[in-house]
């Protein structure tokens, strides 16, 4: 890994994310311990591991939905250190650069599909409504849901809602997209349409961090895979080699269990 000794290095130009010795405790319970992570521009990193391994928490630390209790995280040039509370401006800037897609979609149910995508552009980027709507419709087109613009989210299937959620995040022109188990709440068939959109994004050069249970996605779409267990990183490296030839016993056991399912 890039920085075993934990000393901050000069951030390279094409680095989008750098996590240094990140730890997270809830009370006395430690869910993340000494995590180091680098994501470069255009990279797709898949984070896998058994449930409770801390992978979702790590992702949520990256955009500060859960502030880490140890170490520092740099995302798109904004550094947040656990020893110092982040300012409002830092949080806004950081979240503007990171698009987040949730397991449970979290679309705004009282807004139409179009408003779901347009309102953040208007309020966060200050885009005029007409311009925001044009952008929203283009993104809906791209995720194959142009016809749903004036519907409400409840009228859409889970797979459609998740594609809308992706469009909502993309509308803010993020530098990186964070996916928190985006297909876990979906039937396998509906999950496929979401994965197709994600693959297209990856092919288009979007930087992505994906927490997932989809081993096929981890192996074929992502460039790198990170396996976590018990709040630590077990292994990390190029997708093919990690998925086919894990080195540690714990990682072998996990992959074996997943494949035998």
């Amino acid at each position, binding site marked *: 890994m890039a920085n075993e000794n934990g000393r901050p290095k000069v951030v390279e130009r094409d680095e989008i994310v750098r996590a240094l010795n990140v730890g997270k405790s809830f009370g006395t319970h430690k869910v993340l311990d000494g995590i180091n992570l680098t994501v470069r521009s255009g990279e797709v990193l898949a984070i896998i591991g058994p449930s409770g391994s801390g992978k979702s928490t790590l992702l949520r630390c990256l955009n500060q939905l859960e502030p880490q209790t140890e170490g520092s995280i740099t995302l798109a040039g904004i550094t947040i250190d656990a020893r110092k509370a982040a300012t409002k401006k830092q949080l806004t800037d950081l*979240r503007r650069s990171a698009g987040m897609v949730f397991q449970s979609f*979290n679309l705004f149910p*009282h807004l139409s599909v179009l408003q779901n995508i347009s309102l*953040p552009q208007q*309020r*966060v980027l200050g885009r005029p409504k007409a311009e925001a709507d044009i952008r929203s419709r283009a993104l809906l087109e791209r995720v194959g849901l142009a016809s749903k613009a004036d519907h409400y989210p409840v009228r859409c299937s889970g797979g459609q809602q998740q594609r809308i959620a992706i469009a909502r995040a993309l509308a*803010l022109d993020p530098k990186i997209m964070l996916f928190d188990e985006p297909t876990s709440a979906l039937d396998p068939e509906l999950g496929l349409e979401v994965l197709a959109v994600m693959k297209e994004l990856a092919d288009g050069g979007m930087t992505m961090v994906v927490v997932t249970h989809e081993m096929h996605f981890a192996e074929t779409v992502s460039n790198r895979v990170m396996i976590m267990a018990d709040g630590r990183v077990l292994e990390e490296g190029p997708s093919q080699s990690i998925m086919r030839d894990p080195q540690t016993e714990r990682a072998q056991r996990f992959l074996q269990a997943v494949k035998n399912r």
Partner: protein
Amino acid sequence: MSDLFTFWLENLPTMIDGLIVSLEVTGVALAVGIPLGLLLALGVQSRTLAVRWATMAVVEIGRGAPALIMLQFFYFGLPQAGVSLTSFSAAAFALAWTTSAYTSEIIRAGLEAVPYGQKEAAAAVGFTHTDALRYIIVPQGLRVAAPALLGFSILMLQATSLCFAIALPELLSQAYMIGTNTFQYLPILILAGILYALICIPATIAVSLLERSLSRHTA
């Protein structure tokens, strides 16, 4: 029997005048009290201790003291401090306070019912705290609170009958006045009861229908 209807018919115009005053007071109390209730609901969650304590005091007094006492405080009490209110404005102030206190609790429950994921999603797209409240949390919370707020509004119309005690010429006062003039207390009070029921019964049924249809949509 026809005597009774003649008596009712004779006095109906006066009673309707009273009913209109009752509805006006209700309207003002709700129009002022519910927005105030929203502010109080947000104030109770404030991070500033002074704001939290102040809103809690306003809410606890508004909920803890009987509406009848509030009405008399504003009408008979304030002149001592040099503020003389008409019975209508005293009624409006007192009942608006009561309304704001009760509705703040209803609205707070509504805001708390908004799923945590909504707050997270609002934060994740970069909304400021104010924007998240204004566009995401408050609209959804008010929707949850709507049936309870409507139910409370029905109770508020009933509570205006307490304004009898401060000589506001609302429905009950008119009935009482006709009663003293004619000694026909029972028939005129029955008419008053019927007029209240004519509004409150359909309203109650409508609210429970709304509640049922809302719970079906969210399920």
